[in-house]
């Protein structure tokens, strides 16, 4: 198809580079520098979608971020992305896009029946209709709403694109590269300030690209190009296009989304698709400009009705005529600028001005070149379904209440200008309390809350001369404060046409006997009558009206609808607009890809992966790994076709009969030094620590102040004032913070220091009846007999030239030792243990076997110390000192904690000695009791006992102390299991603890 609406020699696009693209399956051509919108319009395509609620035909309304409707589904490089504004998407070779919210096609959309049923879809329709009967919700209403909701479809494929995050600091961050952004950036840069200038469009210059002004004897556009070129050469300036500052957060942190690759057919290798910048700025200058407001009239959503500024932009930037027979409807001078541009390119527009007798330089120019102007005239309604075909127009009385005789005139587009709305989103997000400016009928930023200042049109200043003056001044002043330089910058002369006052008129009354839909919010299909209904039904707060009608919601965030909505509410309520107030502007200003927000932190980068120094050995020996916090630990070492159950059973059995070795590097380790180290331990742990001799280890339990067990582990006295604490893998970081808290804030008088040494030591536990023989072979010069190195003893020795610490401690309940060497020697130690251990039939064992061993022994771990249990619950009350005070002791006197039937750890064995018990199952008295069946306790950990060859579990059970021997039921509705069980002691194997002392 040919580009019938493109005009020669106009625009900033590259006509030497023709691009082919597809829309709704049909092939078109455009040029490099086009947006999807401008290229479609050049081809005469106005119908792009269907509206959200009524499925009315939708065209283009704006030319950029202001666009409420032209939202398409984009296909690029075998990926699809919803929610793309056709007015922002740059054209590339091979682009494909489709309309959303229509079925089977945008031309014939079955949902459009809603348009004829609109009487049934008023404000609050969903709230009113889908409330009853309740049983309809899941079967009928929810599927219906799900089908109707949203615009476009998210891809369900893994996103192959790469997104990056960047952190940056600067002196001045400037949002928007229009006249005020360029001036302030230039002045600040000249003072040596570190400046970041962000422009969301591909081209810099903002309104200067389309306005007919002169700055310093050049056109506005040339001046902008000169400034940008100079800024780009300055080392203290970063200039970014396609970069939208979408959020203003606390303490002057702003977030910017840079579209790196969206304008290309495919992302280049090693390039991200988008880059998210977190910018901490000393000062922020908001020069985000303004958005033209619509005037509300009948059928004002018909394709072909668009903002007058958009029509001008399509013409001046893209060389595209949005129509050949345009009607311009304005209440201010801006409409005339568009009219003049049309006329210059051989198109005769008609201007309807709601004002009676406006006079200004620009109006005179329009008159002089012969433009047909009708004063005190308005558009009553657009006519045409999929495209404007004509307009009903009428004169209007001075009080704007009475329409004259209605005439119908032919036109193919209606360009509307209802004056300008400053873009105050960023200022408002910063916490700035905005204020209403009567002269422009709009809100502007008020008192700054953070270090932010708003300039130019965003601040309600529409004179270019004043904008340049204030912006140069702001740039100089703020940068001077930071750099202390004061380089004078000359403010160039400005030639611009003076405007006359706009008309405070925003909504055309309905003619008698007509009930046209007059839309306020084009994206969410909210019309004047919807807001009227909401108010009639008693909604008063603007925030409530918003939610009830959906006015100003979704991705549009009321960019074009906000003020007209407020005007309507203020009129009906007979309040002034500032008394109505506006709804909160929330980030993001425009939609941001979830991928960009997530950045690189996906997949294996979503958290760090910690590996022990022996990791490579485990890998080589068929370890199957499991996540343990951020650590990767061997779960079991697979032999042949073994599964987890078989492998872990073999490993556990080998520990009980021979000797096994387990990588315990992941245990948290904290070095404690200082004369008061013992006193610190004495206050942190529940048991007594002051008399622990050098060379001895002790098991300890620490509580939180609320009496709940925080962690457990052993601590060894290495020398007089030096202790080595171990924590569980999961709690290592928390315990360190906990100790630091008490040392720094609560008991600063204690002379002790703590530091994490988890990374510094590699650990191997050797466990089993033959572990002593193995140890003796590893350390032939030491006396490792039961007397030489008794249970809970500690010694240091040399392992083939490597310094080693040897602890006689046991988690498996077997005779066991733990050897620590410096991390670099970890693998050496491991290989030596395996080599020397061969004659004792050593096997490595993973976390699954480790669990089995500790469960059988009734040793508690994370699944029992789950943040809900006290020492008694874990049968650890013998470790709670009655004499001394410690963290959390007072809480143990709480009524619930001393109740007679307090929960307590027990063992659980299935009566059939066969059925495995799922972890997390509940224990109940009667399996057939009516629901909710009272829960007596829960299964905390399960294993297959290698000692007795039957399933065994630990449980935390109400009145556990008196339940031994009872028969209960384990219920797991998730696994659909009911298992009769017997309650036994939690110390299932070696209840007297003889093996560890043997």
């Amino acid at each position, binding site marked *: 198809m040919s580009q019938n609406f493109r005009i020669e020699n106009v625009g900033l696009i590259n006509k030497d580079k023709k691009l082919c693209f597809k829309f709704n399956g049909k092939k078109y051509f455009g040029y490099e520098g086009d947006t999807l919108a401008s290229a479609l319009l050049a081809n005469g395509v106005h119908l792009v979608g269907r509206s959200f609620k009524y499925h009315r035909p939708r065209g283009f309304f704006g030319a950029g971020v202001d666009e409420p409707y032209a939202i398409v589904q984009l296909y690029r490089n075998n990926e699809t992305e919803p929610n793309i504004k056709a007015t922002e998407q740059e054209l590339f070779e091979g682009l494909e896009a489709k309309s959303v919210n229509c079925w089977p096609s945008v031309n014939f959309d079955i949902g459009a029946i809603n348009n004829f049923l609109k009487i049934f879809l008023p404000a609050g329709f969903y709230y009113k209709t889908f409330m009853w009967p309740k049983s309809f919700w899941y079967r009928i209403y929810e599927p219906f709403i799900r089908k109707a909701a949203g615009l476009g479809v998210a891809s369900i494929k893994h996103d192959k694109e790469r997104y990056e995050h960047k952190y940056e600091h600067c002196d001045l961050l400037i949002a928007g590269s229009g006249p005020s952004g360029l001036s302030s950036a230039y002045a600040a840069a000249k003072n040596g300030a570190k400046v970041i200038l962000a422009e969301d469009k591909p081209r810099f210059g903002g309104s200067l690209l389309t306005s007919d002004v002169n700055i310093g004897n050049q056109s506005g556009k040339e001046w902008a190009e000169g400034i940008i070129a100079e800024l780009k050469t300055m080392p203290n300036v970063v200039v970014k296009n396609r970069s939208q500052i979408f959020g203003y957060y606390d303490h002057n942190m702003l977030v910017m989304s840079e579209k790196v690759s969206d304008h290309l057919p495919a992302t280049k290798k090693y390039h991200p698709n988008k880059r998210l910048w977190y910018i901490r700025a000393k000062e922020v200058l908001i020069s985000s400009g303004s958005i033209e407001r619509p005037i509300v009239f009948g059928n004002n959503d018909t394709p072909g009705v668009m903002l007058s500024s958009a029509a001008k932009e399509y013409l001046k930037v893209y060389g595209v005529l949005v129509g050949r027979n345009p009607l311009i409807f304005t209440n201010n001078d801006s409409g005339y600028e568009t009219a003049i541009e049309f006329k210059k390119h051989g198109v005769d527009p008609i201007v309807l001005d709601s004002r009676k007798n406006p006079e200004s330089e620009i109006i005179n120019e329009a008159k002089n070149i012969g433009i047909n102007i009708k004063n005190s005239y308005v558009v009553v309604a657009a006519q045409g379904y999929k495209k404007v075909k004509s307009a009903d127009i009428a004169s209007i009385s001075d009080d704007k209440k009475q329409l004259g005789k209605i005439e119908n005139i032919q036109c193919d587009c209606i360009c509307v200008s209802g004056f300008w709305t400053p873009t105050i989103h960023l200022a408002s997000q910063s916490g700035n309390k905005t204020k209403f400016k009567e002269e422009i009928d709009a809100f502007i930023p008020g008192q700054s809350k953070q270090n932010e200042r708003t300039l130019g049109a965003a601040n309600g200043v529409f004179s270019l001369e004043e904008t340049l003056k204030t912006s140069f001044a702001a740039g100089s002043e703020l940068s001077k404060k930071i750099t202390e330089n004061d380089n004078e910058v000359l403010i160039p002369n400005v030639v611009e046409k003076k405007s006359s006052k706009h008309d405070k008129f925003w909504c055309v009354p309905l003619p008698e006997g007509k009930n046209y839909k007059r839309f306020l919010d084009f994206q969410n299909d909210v019309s004047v009558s919807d807001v009227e209904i909401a108010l009639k039904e008693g909604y008063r707060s603007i925030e409530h009206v918003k939610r009830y009608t959906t006015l100003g919601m979704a991705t549009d965030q009321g960019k074009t609808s906000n003020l007209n909505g407020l005007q309507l509410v203020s009129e009906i309520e007979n309040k002034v607009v500032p008394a109505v107030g506006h709804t909160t502007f929330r980030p993001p200003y425009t939609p941001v890809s979830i991928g960009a927000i997530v950045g690189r932190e996906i997949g294996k980068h979503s958290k760090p992966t910690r590996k022990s120094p022996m990791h490579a050995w485990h890998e080589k020996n068929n370890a199957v790994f499991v996540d343990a916090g951020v650590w990767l630990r061997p779960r079991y070492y697979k032999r042949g076709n073994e599964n987890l159950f078989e492998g872990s059973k073999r490993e556990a059995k080998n520990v009980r009969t021979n000797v096994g070795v387990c990588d315990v590097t992941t245990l948290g380790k904290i070095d404690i030094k200082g004369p008061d180290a013992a006193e610190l331990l004495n206050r942190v742990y529940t048991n007594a620590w002051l008399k622990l001799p050098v060379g001895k280890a002790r098991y300890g339990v620490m509580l939180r102040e609320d009496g709940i067990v925080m962690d457990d582990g052993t601590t060894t006295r290495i020398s007089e004032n030096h202790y080595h604490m171990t924590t569980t893998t999961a709690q290592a970081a928390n315990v360190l913070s906990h100790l*630091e808290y008490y040392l720094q804030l609560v008991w600063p008088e204690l002379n002790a220091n703590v530091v994490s040494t988890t990374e510094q030591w590699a650990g191997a536990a050797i466990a089993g009846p033959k572990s002593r023989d193995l140890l003796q072979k590893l350390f032939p010069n030491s006396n490792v007999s039961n007397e030489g190195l008794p249970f809970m003893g500690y010694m240091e020795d040399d392992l083939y030239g490597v310094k080693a610490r040897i602890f006689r401690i046991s988690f498996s309940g077997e005779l066991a030792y733990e050897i620590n060497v410096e991390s670099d020697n970890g693998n050496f130690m491991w290989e030596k243990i395996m080599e020397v251990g061969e004659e004792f039939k050593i096997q490595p064992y993973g976390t699954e076997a480790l669990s089995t061993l500790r469960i059988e022994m009734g040793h508690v771990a994370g699944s029992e110390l789950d943040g809900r249990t006290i020492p008694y619950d874990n049968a650890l009350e013998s470790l709670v000192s009655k004499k001394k005070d410690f963290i959390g002791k007072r*809480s143990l006197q709480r009524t619930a904690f001393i109740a007679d039937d307090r929960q307590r750890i027990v063992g659980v064995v299935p009566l059939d000695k066969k059925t495995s018990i799922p972890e997390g199952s509940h224990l109940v008295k009667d399996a057939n009791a009516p629901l909710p069946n009272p829960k007596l306790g829960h299964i905390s950990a399960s294993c297959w006992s290698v000692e007795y060859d039957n399933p065994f579990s630990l449980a935390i059970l109400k009145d556990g102390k008196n339940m031994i021997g009872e028969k209960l039921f384990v219920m797991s509705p998730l696994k659909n299991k009911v298992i009769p069980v017997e309650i036994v002691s939690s110390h299932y194997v070696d209840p007297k603890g003889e093996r560890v002392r043997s």
Partner: protein
Amino acid sequence: MLYIKCPHCGMRPQIEFSYGGDASVKRPELNKDVSDQDWDDFVYNRKSLRGKHLELWQHISGCRQWIKVERDTSTHEISRTFKADEEVA
């Protein structure tokens, strides 16, 4: 994201810190009788203030020092920060 002045390291982003609650809470002394009410107040009961609030933060990914931060809970404005042992006037 807040920008917190660590009294030891200078201005640092919030992600380097972890929050530690009300800094005005005093732990009852060890080995002293504490009433149920006083202990309850220490362990559980906190005011939810609107306005200036003195709170604890730990510079967990920095110097690991616990610091006191005076922050306005309604505006997030941080007026002052203190070292752990500094008296707050």
